[in-house]
């Protein structure tokens, strides 16, 4: 049933064919027109566009930058990277794009900064995109919200569990809009899969499996000269000092800094932030979470597993799954992944519309647009800060269990590890001064 070679019961049925051509699909796919009153929460025309700053101008930034650059409802006004040359290069690209507007007296140019506090000190910026490595997400997001900016923060939202609760508190206490960059929530297939699970279309869930893949081990790296113009100490920020090496700071989906626990949670953070997030959504656990985390190998455990209070197991199966996530229930199975992968057994489930009385989940067709709409309307976005925090918590607790080599029992209400004060220490990390506090 789970062999990647075996054709699914719905093989040959493209979801695009059966859903997009369907009436329910057409309605679901219809781009919801914005009803957001830009005249209230932006400024007067023509600059009622939102002013956007980007902090972290590396790998993950590029897609967001292009998308925002292509929008008429906002303007990139500031870029920031500890490697200043990256920011200036992107500034030049932005200025070239906006070049036609330079003579109208409105356009005020794009500024490049090396340090986030310089960008955050500006009072004309409405929102910031945080695209740094994970260890800088929380400090910058926290400062950004306190300085009056709404935040789109790349996933996973935090480096530690405790950082997440701080960000939730700050967002609420500052009245800010916070979107976590777990954009799978804004993809139709994932929403549909979550709705099928929520509405019991595959019966009682018996197992969930997901594929996160694996990173190579973190390397013990010798010291290299720090490139000119790169503030490496700032890049390290709150993490323990380590010698510079290009592989340590490299933005690379298959390696680079993502391999080091100092800067993230490896695959649990990198892909878990997406797939655990969809599983949380499907289970209706956005404000809660699992109760037990079992590392791979513990008493012969074949897979890393986390367990919800009802006994449901989520297994991390890093190869052999036919899609990114597999939900198995007493009446059927759902396979869902990116690029519109959505297969079901029985196959007709994928195209079946929801009834009015069934649970309909938050609809967002575009993660960036959803954020920008919420910046204007002050509603909570689809991957609100609490949601991002709860998902990141699962990433972190799985990583902690793996590192300490024993299961963790978790109280998702109190957000405490039960009966293991040593494991509890891992919920946060000391921060290197002068970056020593959030």
């Amino acid at each position, binding site marked *: 049933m789970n062999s990647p070679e075996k054709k699914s019961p719905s093989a040959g049925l493209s979801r695009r064919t059966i859903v997009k051509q369907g009436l329910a699909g057409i*309605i*679901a796919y219809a781009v919801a027109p914005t009803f957001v009153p830009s*005249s209230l929460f932006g400024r007067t025309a023509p600059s009622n566009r939102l002013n956007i700053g980007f902090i972290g101008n590396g790998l993950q930034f590029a897609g967001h930058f292009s998308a925002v650059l292509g929008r008429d409802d906002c303007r990139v006004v500031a870029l920031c990277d500890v490697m200043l040359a990256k920011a200036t290069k992107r500034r030049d*690209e932005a200025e070239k794009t906006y070049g036609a507007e330079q003579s109208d007296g409105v356009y005020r140019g794009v500024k490049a900064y090396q340090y986030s506090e310089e960008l955050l000190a500006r009072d004309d910026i409405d929102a910031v995109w945080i695209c740094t490595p994970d260890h800088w997400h929380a400090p910058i997001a926290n400062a950004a919200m306190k300085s009056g900016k709404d935040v789109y923060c790349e996933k996973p939202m935090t480096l530690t569990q405790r950082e997440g609760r701080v960000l939730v508190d700050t967002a609420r206490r500052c009245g800010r809009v916070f979107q976590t960059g777990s954009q799978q929530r804004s993809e139709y297939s994932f929403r549909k899969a979550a709705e099928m699970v929520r509405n019991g279309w595959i019966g009682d869930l018996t197992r969930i499996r997901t594929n996160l893949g694996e990173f190579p081990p973190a390397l013990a790296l010798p010291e290299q000269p720090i490139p000119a113009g790169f503030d490496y100490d700032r890049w390290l920020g709150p993490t323990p000092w380590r010698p510079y090496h290009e592989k340590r700071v490299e933005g690379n989906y298959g390696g680079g800094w993502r391999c080091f626990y100092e800067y993230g949670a490896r695959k649990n953070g990198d892909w878990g932030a997406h797939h655990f997030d969809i599983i949380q959504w499907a289970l209706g656990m956005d404000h809660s979470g699992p109760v037990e985390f079992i590392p791979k190998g513990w008493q012969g455990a074949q897979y890393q597993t986390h367990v919800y209070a009802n006994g449901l197991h989520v297994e991390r199966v890093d190869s052999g799954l036919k899609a990114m996530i597999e939900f198995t229930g007493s009446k059927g199975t759902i396979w869902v992944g990116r*690029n519109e992968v959505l297969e079901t057994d029985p196959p007709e489930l994928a195209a079946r519309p*929801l009834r*009015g009385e069934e649970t309909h989940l938050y609809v967002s067709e575009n993660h960036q647009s959803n954020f920008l709409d919420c910046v204007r309307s002050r*509603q*909570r976005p689809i991957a609100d800060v609490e949601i991002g925090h709860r998902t990141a918590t699962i990433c972190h607790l799985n990583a902690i269990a793996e590192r300490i080599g024993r299961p963790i029992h978790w109280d998702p209400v109190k957000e405490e590890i039960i009966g293991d004060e*040593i494991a509890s220490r891992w919920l946060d990390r000391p921060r290197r001064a002068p970056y020593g506090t959030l």
Partner: protein
Amino acid sequence: MCSKKFLRHSALPCCAAALVLAAGCASPSASPPAPDQPAATAAAATPAAMLKSLDYSGNQTALEAIDRAIAAAGTDRTKLSALITELVEILKQADATFTAQQAAAQRLGQFLPPLKADDVALTTVEHLLADERLVNVARLALEPVPGEATDAAFLRTFGETTGGVRVALIQSIGNRRIAKAVPQLAPLLKDSDEPTASAAAKALGQIGTAEALAALERAPNPSARTVIEARLACGWSLASPSDGVAAFQRVLTDAHTSAAYRVLALRGVLGRDPQSAPATILTTLAGDDLAAKRVALEAISALPANAIVAPLAAKLSTFDAPTQAAAIGALAAFGDAAAVPAVSKAIADSDPAVRAAALAAIGKLPGTREGALELAQFLVTATGDEAKLARQSFARLNGPGVNDAILATAAAGDAKLRVVMLEAVATRNLTEAFPLLWKIRADPDATVRAAALRSLGELAPATDQAAVLAWMISATDNQEIARAQRALASISLRNHDEAARDRLVVDAVDHGTAEVQLRLLPVLTRLSSAAAAECAGRLACLSDAKVALAATDTLSRWPERNALPVLITTAEKATLDEARAAAIKGAIGFIERKRETPAKESPDDVARLLTIAKDLETRKSLLILLGRGTSDTALTLAEKLQSDPALAAEARDAALSIRVNRVWPPIITASASADQASRMVDGNAKTAWSVPATAGQWIQVDCKQARPIHRITLDQTGRVGDYPGTVEVFVTDDLSNPGAARATASGRRDRTVIDLPAGIRGRYVIVKSTAKRGGGAGNWSVTELQID
């Protein structure tokens, strides 16, 4: 001697045994010591001796051994105590490397228990807190350790330090929320060293007691950024909510407070005084302070529905339009019935933003029979964005009587309203409507019949294939026929039995009249299986010109490549010359649309078509396609055709292109995202080169040899909107002098095909964007770049 049995029975402490195992009994595959490591490492006298020489690179076995030992110890305090002794020893040793001390401290921080003042671990690490080089190392060990003795160590050391060390210790004191530190921190708010003063303010905010707040309010500049942020933090953490409110009020009324912080203070008041929050929110929304409105709107969601929904709904119409629109969104999030009357009323508001917000919200609120009828009536005349929003809301409207109202209204009455309701049958999965839908087949109104067919197409099971086929064959209205065709295809595709999906339709085609065959051709296209393609191929070979040409045309526009062999067979075997010619043209179109260059398939298809095609221009086109290949067969054919005087030039070009293809891929560079450039020739339509669609972006292809260039195709499959503005194409052998552009083209959605004049040859091809795309910037992406 290194067996597990020995270790289990050894008198050695477990952790030390684990370290010895790692150090002295390493497996043969373990890394050797790095050449620059001290000899002691290699000798591995003791675990501590091993670790104390640790470096960031090279042999990490000592560190790995420690970590294994810690994991093995679990929560066993006896085993951990032994490890603590080992790790503290490293911190004591002056000749231990920084790396070793950092590693030891980091691990101590993970499991040191609460300490007593005279614990060796505490006295050892406390000593390091004042060391500028090691203060952060010491903080790794001590900051996570609870207990008053550790607090006292920080306070003792902090009083003796200055500069960066003091800032580091203040940060630890703040993180540990040491309330006893307030008297020592308060004077530092006046410190001339700005980082010290800021760190003190932040720490006082973290401590968050009344004493800390008092110190902050007595600061020389209580409205300074760091001080006021700390005061706000205290407002949230003070035990007494009324004290918190008072703290926020003092910020609100401070004339020196910036507007941004007054807003944060307002949010604090709303949060700590939920009783008065609804009234404060309503007052704020009625005002004109935009920043305050933003915060008030966000604060709505933090309140219980019974406190805010009714008062907000009652006041809704008194707000300005943009505020109403945003407030409607906030009301919808509660899903509370008390909001329904106000939101329903707003659907008829004169402001389009308010109407749109209400239409989006109404589906999230509890529904009623009357509400469903009103929304359906709205949909009868609605258009554009408002219609989309209303449809989305109608599809999810939930409440008593809603489904019954839909079914009853769909059965009889005004035809336009019935059509709306029949659409809702489909979008709401109302399978209980099946008897009604079949009954509608006899309805006199064709628009209603078509609507019923649409719903059947959405919902009917595969067992209803035959019934829908019969309805389609008997249908008289064009819209009804079209709906029936789509319904039949959709129902067939839902069949669990993949082999049976097309059987009924194929049988009906093979045994039907010409009229039935023509009606079923669109269905075959939608099924697009190999059997369906072969069925269409059989029609293309018939002598009935109308059917044969329609079938050939259908196959030429077939969505799957399984039509290509059928078209080639048709070109060879069709009864009618017109059908054969159309089949050749259709087959060429299929081959041209192939994504990869050089072509991965055999040249047999082109060779077969060259044998069939009589028309000279067609044969020349086929030779260009032959030039995409790499195989010996393709090259042999191209060389053979050089003997044909009419095709000699094209055949020579094809042969040259094939030889150049054999050294594929070309060297490809670009103006930006150069690291992605090779994705344009990787044969993978899922990878792309992508840059902003602005003027000046370029791609340069070095084919390594001069070759004929007939056509450039920029394919952006899957990124249909990522097309360029205007592009120019240069072809040259001399990059320093590329000459004039050989062709200019405007970008097209999905694929941009640029035909070049005849006779162009060159080694280098440059595609340069000369104008940004209209309608916003966006991206220019190329998944595959083809050169013919």
